[in-house]
């Protein structure tokens, strides 16, 4: 009942929102002109590197006149804003899409301005965006799997840490990256087992259960690391998965080396994205999975085993988080350090919400958050006087803004976090 009231309210405030959006578009254009365009030398050029370092070139560097580019971007933003303001409905349902476009143009303008008279390796930036997006997207997929079936999982962080530690430890002992990866996935599953039994069988508050798992995993991984892995270095040297170059595809200009010269984690992420998107929305399994998260009573009445469906959801989700954890040690660093996930499990949670519980939405959010992260490390090199910390804050702030309903609302599964009680047991 409350949902309908809410919808009506949103429709009611819609015109205001359209005007605010139009204002934002115009403001973005004016900022580009005022702060960026006016601040550069008229004859300055910006050089974008189109091949990441160390790879064979597929595309020559792009050299563009800075001020002209900035002016074009500014005019485009203002034009979109005026269109939005002039028409009563603005862009209507496509407003958020246009918002994304304006944001992208703003970022491009920022980069063009920041690299004026210098050179910025755009391919390198995109490459590191993608690799930083991998754990976030995988973590968000873990959250989607659990929460679409109605079990809140804020233990992604803990499961990731556990996967990272176990992957490094087992990978080092057995000398096999693949066994290490399997162990990482299984260690996630063990924690998922605990979370599942607590949340589904004992109906423990799922936020508390998740918090307990986070504390436990942080403690356990740090304990094992301090007691064994730091003193016996051979226990903490698993190595990393190397990149697999896909012949042919990897020589596509610009995107080839970024997308088709990666390690197993990146390819798996894409496979999982398609699998989960397809599974959730085009299969019987997915329908049942979502039904249990939206209206378990109705699902039960139709003969769906709510408990079993939820257990499977939590197990799959926790394995995914363990896999994401494996990325840190086996895919990126090649060594376990205490609390090395550094809150990425929580950013995954944010990416899941930001992506509106949709796999590709989460991937988009992961890319956005990965981009801010990748850009933050490059700001100092470019000599931009914006503190990197503020850039690193953006994922959190953006998530809060989204949650507050400023740019549309996340459609939370209705029974998310509510334990199911069988009637008349």
């Amino acid at each position, binding site marked *: 009942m409350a949902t309908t009231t809410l919808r009506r309210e949103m429709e009611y405030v819609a015109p205001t929102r359209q005007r605010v959006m139009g204002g934002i578009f115009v403001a973005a254009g004016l900022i580009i002109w005022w702060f960026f365009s006016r601040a550069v030398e008229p004859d300055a050029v910006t050089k974008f590197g189109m091949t990441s370092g160390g790879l064979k070139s597929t595309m020559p560097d792009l050299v563009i006149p800075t001020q002209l580019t900035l002016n074009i971007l500014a005019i485009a933003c203002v034009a979109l804003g005026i269109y939005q303001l002039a028409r009563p409905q603005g862009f209507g349902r496509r407003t958020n899409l246009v918002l994304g476009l304006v944001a992208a143009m703003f970022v491009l303008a920022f980069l063009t301005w920041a690299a004026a008279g210098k050179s910025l390796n755009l391919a390198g930036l995109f490459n590191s965006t993608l690799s930083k997006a991998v754990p976030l997207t995988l973590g968000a997929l873990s959250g989607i799997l659990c929460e679409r079936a109605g079990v809140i999982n804020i233990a992604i962080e803990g499961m990731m840490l556990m996967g990272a530690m176990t992957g490094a430890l087992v990978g080092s002992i057995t000398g096999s990256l693949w066994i290490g990866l399997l162990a990482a996935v299984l260690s996630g599953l063990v924690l998922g087992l605990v979370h599942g039994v607590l949340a589904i069988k004992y109906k423990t508050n799922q936020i508390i259960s998740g918090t307990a798992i986070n504390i*436990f995993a942080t*403690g356990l991984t*740090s304990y094992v690391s301090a007691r064994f892995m730091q003193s016996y270095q051979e226990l903490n040297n698993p190595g990393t998965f190397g990149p697999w170059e896909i012949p042919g595809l990897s020589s596509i200009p610009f995107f080839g080396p970024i997308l088709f010269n990666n390690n197993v984690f990146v390819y798996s992420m894409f496979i999982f994205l398609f699998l989960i998107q397809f599974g959730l929305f085009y299969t019987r399994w997915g329908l049942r999975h979502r039904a249990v998260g939206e209206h378990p009573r109705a699902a039960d009445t139709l003969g769906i085993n709510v408990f079993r469906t939820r257990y499977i959801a939590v197990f799959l989700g926790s394995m995914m988080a363990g896999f994401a954890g494996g990325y840190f040690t086996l895919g990126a660093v090649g060594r376990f350090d205490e609390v090395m996930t550094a809150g990425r499990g929580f950013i995954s949670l944010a990416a899941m919400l930001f992506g509106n519980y949709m796999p590709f939405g989460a991937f988009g959010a992961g890319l956005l958050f990965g981009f801010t992260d990748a850009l933050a490390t490059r700001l100092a090199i470019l000599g931009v006087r914006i503190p990197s910390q503020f850039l690193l804050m953006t994922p959190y702030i953006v998530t809060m803004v989204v949650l507050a309903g400023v740019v549309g609302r996340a459609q*939370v599964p209705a029974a998310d976090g509510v334990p199911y009680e069988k009637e008349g047991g």
Partner: protein
Amino acid sequence: MGEEKLPTEKDTRNSKNAGKVLQEELLREATGGHPPHVSRMRRIIRALAIPVLAIFTALVIGGIFIVLTTPEFYAAWKVSPIEGLKEGWNILVTAYSALFTGAIGDPQKMIAALQSGNPLAIRKAFYPFFESLVASTPYIFGGLSVALGFRAGLFNIGAEGQIFIGAIFAAFVGYAVKGLPGIIHMPLAFLAGAVGGGIWGMIPGWLKARTGAHEVINTIMMNYIAFRLSDWLLTGLMKRPDSPNPVSPTIENSAKFFRFFGEPIRFHLGFFVALFVAWLVYWFLFKTRWGFDLRTVGSNPRAARYAGMSVSAMIILAMTLAGALAGMAGGNEVLGLNYNLAMAFSSGYGFDSIALALLGNSHPLGVVLAALLFGFLRNGATSMQLKAGIPIDIISIFQALVLVFIATPAIIRTIYRLKAPAEGEGGIMVTGWGGN
């Protein structure tokens, strides 16, 4: 997201027995949900059974874990299982006695020091005990913060960030304001910490009341914003000019909390401030009208709305107060202990507070007791790390176990074959992201 489990106005009007429902709800709330015939003593025993058994079980499992992760145990086990058990017992005794002497002190040393009459020796002998009290102090503030949230039906997972902001505010007032007498400067800096934490708590509270955005997500996000913010401040505006490290200038002497004994004991005024604040929270929650409203909103928002209480205002108030309490923990650490602000000074007080608020059943007295326990454990674990080589992270495992057992009393009841209570337990509210 955003729908509360509250009736719309239409529902309220349609409910014919609204008055009756309200009466029952308020009566239950006022009597604490217990039927009047259960004696006070039995109620206390019943209330204590689960926490005590939870702590005990966690210690046992922690002990087994310590033994199983010690290589010497396996070496002895290979000789013979009996040797293995003996060795295991030895490991356990070494570890837990180091924990005990680290937390309370070595009784022999204490007696010897008292007999010698040497003040320095006495202080050294009693140092562990007072150090444990020092470690408990931020836990009291943090636990009160989470507990107050629980009472209002809110999950303040953001105590950690609020502690950071509180510390930033307190440190700033501590070093930037000069020339004030201690009697003014010290409370001013401490209150600045409370204000900082309060602001940080108010934002998620306001968002929850205004838009229904879930406070768990928002407080987590606010945590990370706080970390980044303090990182930025400590490498920029608040950085001590003459230091290469990200650390703030030392606070003025007038802002420092009074220390009761000479070196090396660091026991300071903050502990008594914490006890006073705990009493204040008790008084607020159980003796004032606002406290009653706040608890009603927490235990039964429906009844609260029937009674004409402003649920939104109470949510904002509760989160602000919870933030302020956590901010005091930050202020306490800066003014009483570190005298400056450095990154990573808090080391998880905010997250541990969740466990101890639950352990203390969200009651100020329970929180103080639980905080003392956690403080002693933390301090003891430090010495366990030095003397027995057990990494201090063991207490996180221990705390996680306590948290699970307290939140799931059914496990403890199954292990110890306790009878389930006749009526459902109060427990913690079970809410989804959408608050319904």
